[in-house]
């Protein structure tokens, strides 16, 4: 059976936005994602290599732009003379801060504040002639014809004398010297804006304080033969950075736990009870809410019958019986869906997906439970899905699939498949499924596929009436794409079929019902969590590194 891959809509993941020059993405686990889980790389990409553009011409890059070597410039004025050491020092002294041979390179991106604690390591492959190497940080736009540390907003640790340079041409005694074979690490604590270095896995102490935000990892070289390799976190580090991360997490947790609150806001018991109770009511856990309210004396603001109604609708959606849910909604809250075409479209779209899934049938047909038979044959996966929220009545009802090997039908293979009319993007591959080859149940299969196609057309027509919004369009495309595969469950768009996807639809419907009843569309506890989450995002944008260590899910779990 021929697949038309071109029909696949954008899958909508964040990949593909990577900088073209770093093709170093490993196929296995991305260690950087584990190191910096709170960094949103779509907003603030992590440094993963040295920049081919943001460097001085004397610098050469190789090995996926992770190796830096000094290639020097052409002979000319300003090239440092070859002199014995003392003369060289004198020469340097005379030339002040203009070491014209020094050259630096910055990483592709600045360090995102949401890293919390950022770290990279540089291995000195060769110290070259004199080992005048500097490792550190610099801001965007700082002169690259320098070693890191010499200019404003530039910070470096130099191998020849072990001094640290803090935006100044004169260094401070800081640590040991370093040379061929050493591994030098540079860590940036974005909570207190300090920087430390390590040598061969040993912490050398804080080198700089009061760092500005948005610094780039930087290395500088100055004499021929100097070569360094870099590990931005793709490989395990020599230094145990995890230990420091743990410490910062623990410290942030203590800071949160011990944050002082004014007395009137500190009545936790009351607040928590209220939150639990409203959450239960909001999601229609009716009897639990009643029991809880009896135990804690919390009032329930909503009529019990109303909660039960919402619960019923939610159960239907969660069971995949969206058509029934729509009908029930229309009956119980007339006018609601008519006033909110976007919601109706969302429901219908889901209904279509559930039709593919074989869990949704028009309530009027086939008896109460509906016949949960997918019209699409598949061979790969047994049809057993349950999200554990609602027992799938439909599945019990008769989740019998039609077992059929994908027949190699020569006559269909070479034909250009015609588009199904009225459903752009849906090829006639569905037509190929049409059960004219089915020996048994032929008529019922055909009828159900035709019903589905008809439903699809209706859906498409509906989408045309909505304000042409990219969101709706891609949702529809994703749903229709299901039809392009012989086994939709194993296809790249198969995620839509997962029962867990019903939850978002269920929530949207529930919120709309509540809103129409004049109640809050989200429960206080969820509002609180999403508020906290958005605060963390704001912190990240405002370069407040502590956001990296406020692990919301861990705090909630506690």
């Amino acid at each position, binding site marked *: 059976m021929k697949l038309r891959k071109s029909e696949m809509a954008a899958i909508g993941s964040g990949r593909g936005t990577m900088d073209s020059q770093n093709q170093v993405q490993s196929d296995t686990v991305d260690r950087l994602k584990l190191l910096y889980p709170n960094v949103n790389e779509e907003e603030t990409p992590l440094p993963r290599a040295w920049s081919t553009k943001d460097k001085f011409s004397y610098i050469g890059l190789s090995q996926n732009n992770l190796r830096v070597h000094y290639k020097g410039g052409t002979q000319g004025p300003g090239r440092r003379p070859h002199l014995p050491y003392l003369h060289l020092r004198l020469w340097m002294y005379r030339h002040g801060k203009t070491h014209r041979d020094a050259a630096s390179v910055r990483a592709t991106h600045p360090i995102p504040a949401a890293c919390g604690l950022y770290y990279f390591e540089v291995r000195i492959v060769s110290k070259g002639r004199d080992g005048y190497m500097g490792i550190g940080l610099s801001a965007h736009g700082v002169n690259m014809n320098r070693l890191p540390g010499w200019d404003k907003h530039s910070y470096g640790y130099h191998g020849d004398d072990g001094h640290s340079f803090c935006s100044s041409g004169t260094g401070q005694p800081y640590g040991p010297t370093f040379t061929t074979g050493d591994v030098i690490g540079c860590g940036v604590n974005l909570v207190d804006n300090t920087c430390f270095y390590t040598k061969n896995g*040993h912490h050398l*102490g804080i080198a700089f304080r009061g760092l500005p935000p948005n610094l780039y990892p930087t290395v500088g070289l100055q004499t021929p033969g100097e070569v360094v390799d870099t590990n931005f976190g793709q490989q395990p580090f020599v230094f145990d950075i995890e*230990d420091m991360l*743990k410490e910062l997490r623990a410290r942030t947790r203590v800071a949160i736990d011990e944050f002082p609150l004014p007395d009137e806001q500190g009545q936790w018991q009351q607040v928590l009870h209220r939150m639990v109770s409203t959450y239960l009511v909001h999601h229609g856990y009716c009897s639990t809410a009643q029991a809880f309210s009896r135990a804690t004396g919390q009032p329930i603001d909503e009529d019990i019958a109303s909660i039960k109604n919402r619960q019923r609708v939610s159960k239907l959606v969660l069971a995949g019986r969206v058509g029934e849910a729509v009908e029930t909604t229309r009956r119980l809250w007339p006018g609601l869906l008519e006033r909110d075409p976007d919601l109706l479209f969302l429901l219908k779209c889901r209904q279509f997906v559930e039709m593919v899934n074989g869990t949704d049938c028009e309530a009027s047909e086939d008896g109460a439970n509906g016949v949960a038979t997918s019209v699409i044959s598949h061979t790969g996966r047994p049809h057993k899905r349950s999200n554990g929220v609602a027992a799938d009545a439909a599945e019990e009802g008769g989740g019998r699939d039609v077992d059929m090997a994908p027949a190699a039908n020569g006559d269909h293979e070479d034909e250009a498949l015609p588009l199904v009319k009225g459903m752009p993007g849906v090829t006639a591959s569905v037509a190929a499924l049409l059960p004219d080859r089915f020996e048994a149940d032929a008529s019922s299969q055909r009828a159900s596929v035709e019903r589905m196609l008809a439903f699809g057309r209706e859906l498409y027509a509906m989408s045309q009436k909505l304000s042409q919004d990219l969101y709706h369009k891609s949702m529809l495309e994703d749903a229709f794409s299901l039809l392009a595969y012989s086994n939709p469950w194993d296809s790249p768009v198969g995620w839509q079929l997962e029962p867990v996807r019903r939850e978002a639809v269920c929530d949207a419907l529930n919120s709309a019902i509540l809103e129409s009843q004049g109640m809050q569309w989200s429960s206080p506890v969820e509002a609180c969590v999403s508020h906290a989450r958005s605060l963390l995002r704001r912190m990240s944008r405002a370069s407040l590194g502590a956001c990296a260590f406020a692990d919301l899910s861990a705090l909630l779990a506690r």
Partner: protein
Amino acid sequence: MQQFTVFMDIESSRSYIDELYSSDAVKVMEALVTLKNSVIGSNRQKSSVISQGVVPRLLQLMSEESLDPNIRLEATITIGSLAKGTPENIDSLIEKGTATALVEMLKTVPLGSKLAEAALCALRSIFSHKPAPVDALPADMRLLTRLTQIAREDSQEARTSVIRVLAVWCSGTVEQEALTCAGACSAAAAMLVVPPRSVPSPSRLVPALELLAAMCFKNPNVAQVALNTRHGDKSIPELLMCLVSRDKPLVVALKAAKCLTFLQRAGALPADDSRIVFGALPCLARLCTKENTEDIRASAAEVLAYLTEVDTSLQRLAAISNHLMSSLADIVNCQSAAAKQGAFKCFASLGANDEDIRKMIIETHGLMVHVVNGLNNPDPCVSLAAVRCLHSLSRSVQQLRTTFQDHAVWKPLMQLLNDSPGPELLNVGSSTLCNLLLEFSPAKEPMLDQGAVEMLCNLTKMSDPALRLNGIWALMNMAFQAEQKVKQRILCCLGTEQMFRLLGDSDTRVIMKMLGLLRNLLSTRQHIDAIMSEYSSQVMQAVIVVLEGSYPAEVKEQALCILGNIGDGEKSKDLIMANEDVLRKLVDYLAHPESKLQEAALFVAGNLVWRGEAGAAARQQRLAELGLLRALKLLRASHHAAHLHDKVKTALAQFNEFT
């Protein structure tokens, strides 16, 4: 039960105290409960109750096995409460045999009972007091096995208590070995496990870490057992490694690093073990930083001093770790004696071997002022640590010439040594003095004025060989290229009697330094003649004593060198020539199988036969008569003495009339 208040006076408490002695169990019980409630939280009540002599009765109620267990429990709890009182309260409890009674009780009470827990709790309180009544707990295997069993299996409270008691008790090799046999290592290991996702509790971990440290301290056998003890899938060093991480409470990390340090120093872990290099050392360096409290920093510096005491690679590593030097320089400025002491000790260890580190200590951190202040500190621990630091730094020739001179460190040092110092201070101080008195040290002159000679001569009379060695060594250093008046003063002050006593010393090193002193005294021609004119007989006698005695070759070599020096003097030559005995020996030594003795004898002979000096011909003739010429010729022919041929030739060349 009668009503009471915290402020109840002694008179009103009389009645229930009388009830304590009643034979009616119910009344006794009531009285006990009243008593217990009255003493809880009130030191005044505790003192008053103890002064009324209730303790023996309580001990009796506690120990009597026939009594109602509840009465015993209440009595034990009351004792435990009293043991939380003032030090005087605990003293009187110990005096009345409380510790022994509790230990006796622990032998019999059922494990896991409330009674056992209460008894352990009381015992822990008593053992927390210093000095702890360690004798009350005999090194009896059955008892110890029982206690370690409690430490493994009992309630959390009982386990913590028993481990704390054992940690205090374990103070010597006997205790260490006994506890190890009783399985205390595995009991401690079990306490060190921190379940994942739980907050580590210092009150549980610290006693176990203290016990482990106390057991491993300087004991290679126990350390080896600890190394191989496992709990679950982790060995003790691995468990400790988890505890030194940054997210653990500081006191836990400190104690864990201490255990790792003790394991290393006891030889169970090599100095380059990753758990030392990446575990204990960075942890301790981190704990020394400014962010931490003074007592944590003080203890961390002290442990780090012990960890880096001998190993140069660890010293170098520590020196670059986490700005340790700055941290220590800052700790020196802390108020407490413990902090100053820890920092000085740590500096002493770091600077023990590496010149660069010494330079860094002095140059980057301006430590000398603090060392001098430390020497003057009234607390003997601080001044001792400062002397240790000074001793370590005095190994640097450069520092002796510069910084030490600038700060006149010898002044406070001499003062300390003259001020009836303790044996340890005397030892380290005199070693430092030795270094300060090296020839090139400019401190030499002013120290002489301070009576250094007299003090050093006194040192040579000490019973401790290390002190005698330091004394004579310092004198030797002092005499090197010194002025004649200094040499006279040394000879005069030391006295010939003491000189001979030192030549007969049991320690060869002392004899060597004594002879070295003589060599240094007898150098340059004028000094030789001047000294020999006064002390000829004694010096010659000393040389003969050594040459005739059964001394090792290197000692005799020194004696021959002295003869050589004497032979260089103008008039002193005659002293040798007049002594046929010595001359014959000289000839014998030229044929001695030991080549360094041959060389030394050749040096003496060369000086004696040197032409162009008055009386050379006569000396040559005399020596030829005694067979010296023959001996020299033999030496020239010998293949074994090829390296001496040049010198033999030079000597033979002097004898032109005879050859």
